[in-house]
Structure formats: C-alpha cells, structure tokens
C-alpha cells in the first residue's frame, strides 16, 4: 500500500472517530462550545480595541480566518507534537509503523481538522459580528491557497515539536499570531511568495480577480510544501540520532 494511501485512510479514520468522540462528549452539555473560545477570545479582544479606536471592524475578519486556517494548525500541532515526542513510548508506537512519520502526519492532520471544525463556530460568530464582504472568485482563490497551506503548516509544527525543547512556549507564542497577521502588508509581491497567506489577504480585499497575487501565492505554497517537508525530514533525522526533544 502506498504511503499516501495509508496516510489518507488512517487520517480519515482519526478525524471521523475524533469527531464522533466530540459529538459523544457534547452529551455532557454546553461544554462543547468552549472549544472555539480560545481563538474567539483573541478575536474579541482585537474587535473591542478596534471599535474603541474607531477602526474598521470589517477588516478583522479575513485575518482571523487566516489565523484559524494557518496559524492554528501550526500552533496546535506544535504543542501536540511536543507532547507526543517527549512521551517516547507513545511516539515510538506510532513511529514503529510502516508509514512511520507519515502516520503522525496523518494523525496531526486529523487533529487539525477536528480543531478547525471546532473553530468553525468561532469563525461563524466572528462573521455574524463583523458582517464581512465576500467577493466570489477572489474569495474562493484566497481560501484555496489557505487550504493548501494547512499541510506544510502541520509539517512545520511537527518539526518544531520534535526538535525544540522550548516548543511548548513557542506554540503559545504562535497562538498570538493573529496580531502579526493584522499588521503584515498585503500588497508586497515577494511577501506573497514568502508568506502566501498575505496573497490570500490581498485576494480577499479585492473584488476583481487579479492573476499576479494568486500565482505568486501559489508558487509560495509549492515552495512551502518542499521546504516544510525538508525541515520535517531533517528534524526526524535529528530525532533518530537522539537529538530530539526526548534527549535525557
């Protein structure tokens, strides 16, 4: 069986069973609503500050969407990866499988989708509050780029979690990435390549579909797929040499 097939199948099982577990836990009441509160509380703080300063609250929505689709897989996976790799018995049982590191990738992908489902509530609440403007073709192109960035985000998060002993603290810092996204320029071509979500933000802000930001962003996505995979493999080689987060 190919690695990709195994990863996709196992990840689908992981996502489906995790979702069933969440639904089952929802029987215990409104605790299920707590899931998106972490991200939503960051959004609400910025929303309140923007209103107080007389700013345009509509401008907050798409950075928040980016934050959920990119930064959250990166930050949450960094944390989960760190927890997994510091627990050597748990990481060993997952790595000692035919697809090895991809088993974990599938697992974290499942975790990310599960957390994104939870965050969907937060995104909906944010959309209801600020009523953002959505431009059809550009909006779809922007979301397409963001979805493609999920896998490299997870790979980066995995690499950080297995390599750096301060990964836990770093993941908390990443969770504050919303503020960084808000201040980044969205009309710089080289930044569309370096950080493709800035291309998405540019697309979201424009009604007419311009090919340049999409193409630059797409090139950036492809580069991130290559770079993140290379970083992950390097981090795993370090881990196998005994230079990971589990070192004594």
């Amino acid at each position, binding site marked *: *069986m190919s690695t990709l097939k*195994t990863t996709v*199948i*196992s990840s689908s*099982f*992981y996502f489906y*069973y*995790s979702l*069933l*577990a969440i639904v*089952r*836990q929802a029987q215990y009441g409104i605790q299920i609503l707590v899931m998106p509160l972490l991200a939503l509380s960051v959004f609400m703080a910025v929303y309140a500050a923007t209103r107080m300063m007389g700013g345009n609250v509509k401008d907050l929505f798409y950075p928040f969407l980016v934050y959920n689709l990119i930064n959250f897989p990166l930050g949450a996976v960094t944390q989960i990866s760190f927890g997994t790799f510091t*627990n*050597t*018995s*748990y*990481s*060993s*049982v*997952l*790595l*000692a*499988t*035919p*697809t*090895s590191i991809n*088993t974990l990738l*599938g697992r974290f992908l499942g975790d990310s989708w599960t957390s994104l489902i939870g965050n969907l509530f937060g995104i909906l609440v944010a959309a209801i509050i600020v009523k953002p403007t959505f431009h059809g073709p550009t909006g779809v192109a922007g979301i397409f780029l963001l979805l493609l960035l999920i896998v490299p985000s997870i790979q980066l998060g995995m690499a950080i979690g297995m390599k750096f002993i301060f990964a836990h603290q770093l993941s908390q810092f990443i969770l504050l990435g919303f503020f960084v996204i808000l201040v980044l320029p969205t009309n710089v071509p080289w930044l569309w390549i370096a950080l493709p979500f800035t291309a998405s933000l540019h697309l979201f802000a424009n009604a007419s579909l311009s090919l340049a930001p999409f193409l630059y962003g797409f090139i950036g996505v492809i580069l991130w797929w290559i770079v993140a995979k290379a970083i992950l493999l390097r981090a795993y080689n370090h881990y*196998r*040499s*005994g*230079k990971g987060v589990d*070192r*004594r």
Partner: protein
Amino acid sequence: MKQYIIKANDLQKTYPTKPPVKALQGFSLSVEHGEIVGILGPNGAGKTTFIRILLGILLPDAGEITVGDASPIASPKKVARQIRFVPELPFLNSNWTLWQNARYWFSVWEEAWAPGKVKDLLIRFRLIERADEPLSRYSRGMQQRAGLALALASTAPVIIMDEPTLGLDVLGVQETLDILENTKDQGRTILFASHDMHFVEKLADRVALVAKGRVLETSTAYDFRKKYGQEYVTLRYKLPAQNEIISEQLPVDASYSDERTWNRITKMGGTLIELRRDLQSLDMVVGHYLQQNAY
C-alpha cells in the same frame, strides 16, 4: 541450524547530551524464530534504547542489527511490517472505543481488517463486553491489555513489549501470561523488557541480563538461577511442647547436610513436616549478581 529473526551485534549508542550518556556499549543479542526472550536489567541499563533501535526509531552510533532480512537502520519501514510494539504505557486513544482503536491501528499497520480475529482476542482478554465503550472508562490495566490484544490480533511475526505488566493487577498479569504462553504454539517471536521476575521466569524461554549497555548473560531462567543462585532448604517441623509449625530456611553450603538437620530435630523431639531443597528466586539471584559485579 538455528534461524535467528533478530540479530544485534556490538551496538553502540551515546546520547549527545552534556555530559554524553553511554546507553549501549557493545550490546549483542540474537533471538530465534518463535522464541520468547525476556530482557532483565536495572534502570538505565539500555533496555529501552535497544528496543528503540530495534524499532528503527533511534540510530546506533556503531554496530549491526537485523530483523529478518531487513535492517532497522536502513529499512525501518520494512522492519515495521514485521514488528508490533506494545509500550509500557497505554497507547490507544482514550476518547475512542476499542473497536474504533482497532480499526485505526489496522489501517496504520497496513493490515487487512480482521474483525473476527480481533473479536476472538477481545473475548480471551475479557474485553469484548466493553469494546463499544470509550477507553477513558477503562482501568489502566484494561487499557494496557487492550493494546496487547490488538498487537496480538495483527499478523506480524514479532511482538516487542516494554514492561508489559506495568500497572496490571495480579489477575491481569496472570491473564496476560496465559494468553502469551498460548501464542508459543503460533510460532510468534516475543521480545520483552520487564522488571517483573515472576512474569519473566514464567514466560521467557531465555532471559538476557543487561547492565551498563551490554548483555552480560543469556540463558534460561532456571540455568541462571542454578549457575549464580544459592541452593537453600525449606524446613518445616513441629516441637512436642508447641502447637505452632516452625519454618526455617537454611543455605546449602559446605557445612550443611540433610542428615545433620534431621538429627537436630529428632534430638529436640520434633516431628519433621517438610524438608525441601530449592534454588533462590530469580529476583534474588539477579539482585546478588548485579551487586557482586558492581552494576
């Protein structure tokens, strides 16, 4: 001619910490097809490091290791198809049911889904009635048994276990022992590390005593006890003036003889109930051996 499925030769591993930790220093061990080998040794002896190298998760600095015809250093994926690993802590997802866990792990192991075989194992492990409940409702021992049951339900020829009895109650240990003893007929190779000497002695065809990163001895548990353990006599007798049965344990050394012991009791007017020669238990022998050799 012996056919080895696991062969490790002169493995060296130093963790790149400050200061560096020498975990393996010439670790060599061979395991035959269908053999059950228990690895014994104090904490920090190198047992887990060896297991992680065997699984292909950790790279040795030097030495050779093969599982079947594959090397976990060069072809970890090929090795992973032959091995199922059961760690010392429950590894299944506690939010899922046992059936869901089983389905997930079979997909990860790239094995054809075999619900019938899983069901048989769950019946034998007395888990079937609760197999539709999330594992968070299981006791720690049940979760551990569940992990072992899934590993045994797979078709992999080699099972590696790290502390399989950790957290199990007396009944759980006995059940695990019974099931693993039954797998002997299936020709499955089992390699496990444990501090539970009773479990090791009951299950293992051969024990490997490990200390300071290398294998010091390999033999059957009985041969090890016989070679390094002291023989002793358990004596039970009753004196005329006393109602209680008196028990004594005497070392069998140069000055001991059954006849002298018999005469001593007879002189006191006592009645001998039992005189039984035995070897020291494995935990005592291993403890003494490690102390005497300054490990």
